[in-house]
């Protein structure tokens, strides 16, 4: 546990769900008041001295309906506020100058009923932090007019078994329009989360998708030292979760990030930058990503979603073995939650079953 205090993790995941977009649109991002599409969501999650700093941005492409997204979190946030305006773009530019625009839909979101820990509004986004099991969080969402995809019960439980904290972001497109927000405008949200556990939720990217649907995303990690990852990533250029870049972060990058609103926690130097490209299918993305920056090289199989925490000796069924080398045995130590990152998945959709 103590070793976690000296590590930092900064993760950025740019969700790219080009292939999944039509499925999501059909799946429920259409409501009686119009059509809303979450065109792109970018998320950054960091962990430094035991505190998670999570930044995500919701961008919409218009319409008048209400939609939402649920993101699994590793702990209870102490603060939710509007984030900096350009941190995400700066990270992308640093690591992926040629990055093409991506489309990303929404993600959403356990006890007999979910406990609302925090509610706030940032621009046109209603943010609610929930604690509860998968069913309770699902009930909470359904009772507020959103529908869950058929795989949501299993996926929400998959996360709730490890951390029963979720962030539900409900986007009010009419409010956005009233505020003068234009199509393509994003709303950055920053969460500060004291936590000892860190993982990047990847499985949720496949929420609401057919097993053969393509899932593409970019994940950036910025840590105090070179991280150990589980599952071990594939080599650059390979399909799956591939480690495309692994290098010291430039001081210029860190200075730029630190200068943005709410980003003063970023260290001035000494961080390691990793870029992972996710190019797989929903059926193969049955796991998350555990990150260990302690230097011991032991990310947790539980944090990676490879072992059922309720039955530690039973591995989660794996359609395909993790790419890369053999997985080291690691204690439960996670940093960061980039996961939310993943915005895409859950897709609490407007409950229009009759359509």
């Amino acid at each position, binding site marked *: 546990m103590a070793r976690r205090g000296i590590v930092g993790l900064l993760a950025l995941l740019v969700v790219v769900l080009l292939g999944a977009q039509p499925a999501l649109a059909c*799946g429920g991002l259409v409501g009686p008041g119009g059509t809303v599409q979450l065109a792109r969501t970018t998320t950054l999650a960091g962990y430094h001295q035991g505190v998670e700093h999570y930044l995500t941005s919701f961008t919409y492409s218009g319409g008048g309906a209400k939609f939402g997204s649920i993101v699994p979190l590793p702990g209870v946030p102490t603060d939710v506020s509007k984030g900096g305006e350009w941190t995400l773009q700066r990270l992308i530019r640093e690591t992926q100058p040629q990055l093409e625009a991506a489309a990303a839909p929404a993600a959403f979101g356990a006890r007999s009923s979910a406990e609302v820990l925090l509610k706030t509004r940032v621009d046109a986004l209603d943010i609610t932090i929930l604690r509860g099991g*998968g*069913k*309770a*969080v*699902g*009930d909470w*969402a*359904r009772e507020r007019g959103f*529908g*869950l*995809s*058929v*795989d*949501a*019960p*299993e996926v*929400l*439980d998959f996360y709730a078994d490890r951390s029963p904290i979720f962030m539900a972001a409900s986007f009010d497109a009419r409010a956005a329009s009233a505020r003068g927000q234009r199509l393509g405008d994003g709303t950055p949200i920053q969460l500060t989360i004291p936590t000892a556990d860190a993982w990047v939720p990847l499985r949720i990217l496949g929420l609401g998708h*057919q097993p053969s649907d393509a899932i593409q995303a970019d994940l950036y990690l910025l840590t105090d030292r070179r991280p150990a990852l589980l599952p071990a990533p594939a080599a650059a250029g390979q399909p799956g979760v591939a480690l495309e870049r692994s290098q010291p972060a430039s001081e210029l990058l860190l200075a730029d990030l630190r200068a943005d609103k709410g980003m003063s926690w970023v260290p001035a130097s000494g961080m390691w930058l990793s870029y992972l490209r996710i190019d797989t299918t929903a059926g193969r993305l049955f796991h998350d990503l555990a990150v260990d920056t302690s230097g011991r090289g032991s990310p947790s199989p539980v944090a990676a979603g490879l072992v059922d925490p309720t039955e530690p000796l039973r591995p989660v069924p794996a359609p395909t073995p993790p790419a890369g080398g053999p997985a080291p045995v690691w204690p439960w130590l996670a940093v960061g939650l980039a996961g939310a990152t993943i915005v895409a998945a859950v897709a609490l959709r407007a409950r229009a*079953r*009759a359509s």
Partner: protein
Amino acid sequence: MAALTLAGGLTLLHAAAGQATQTVVVTMHHSRFQPEVVRVAPGTTVRFLLRNTDPIDHEFILGDDAVQRRHEQGRQREHHGEVPGEVSVAAGGQAATTYTFRQGGPASLQFACHLPGHYAYGMRGVALVSSG
């Protein structure tokens, strides 16, 4: 042969009458049926008690291929139990439907949920009808 069938049927019917209606509990969890296979004897009347532990709605539709196709392609989303073997089960709720597996009927029937995407996800099971 007819006599044998009749005798067999009478035996079974007699047993069923002795036990009244049999109850089978089917749980809907993670958008799957548990159990996925139910064995019943011809002539048995079964009360399916359906428990939905999921935060989403489900339905239980029992019938042959034609019934399943009709529901998969249809738009009816509410089943209040008027039709034997067909009932909606609200999120977190439970419901029941009673169905008689007639003598001389199909050797198997399928039960499934036809809410959008549920059948394709694998939310289906089979009732095997045999006296063995």
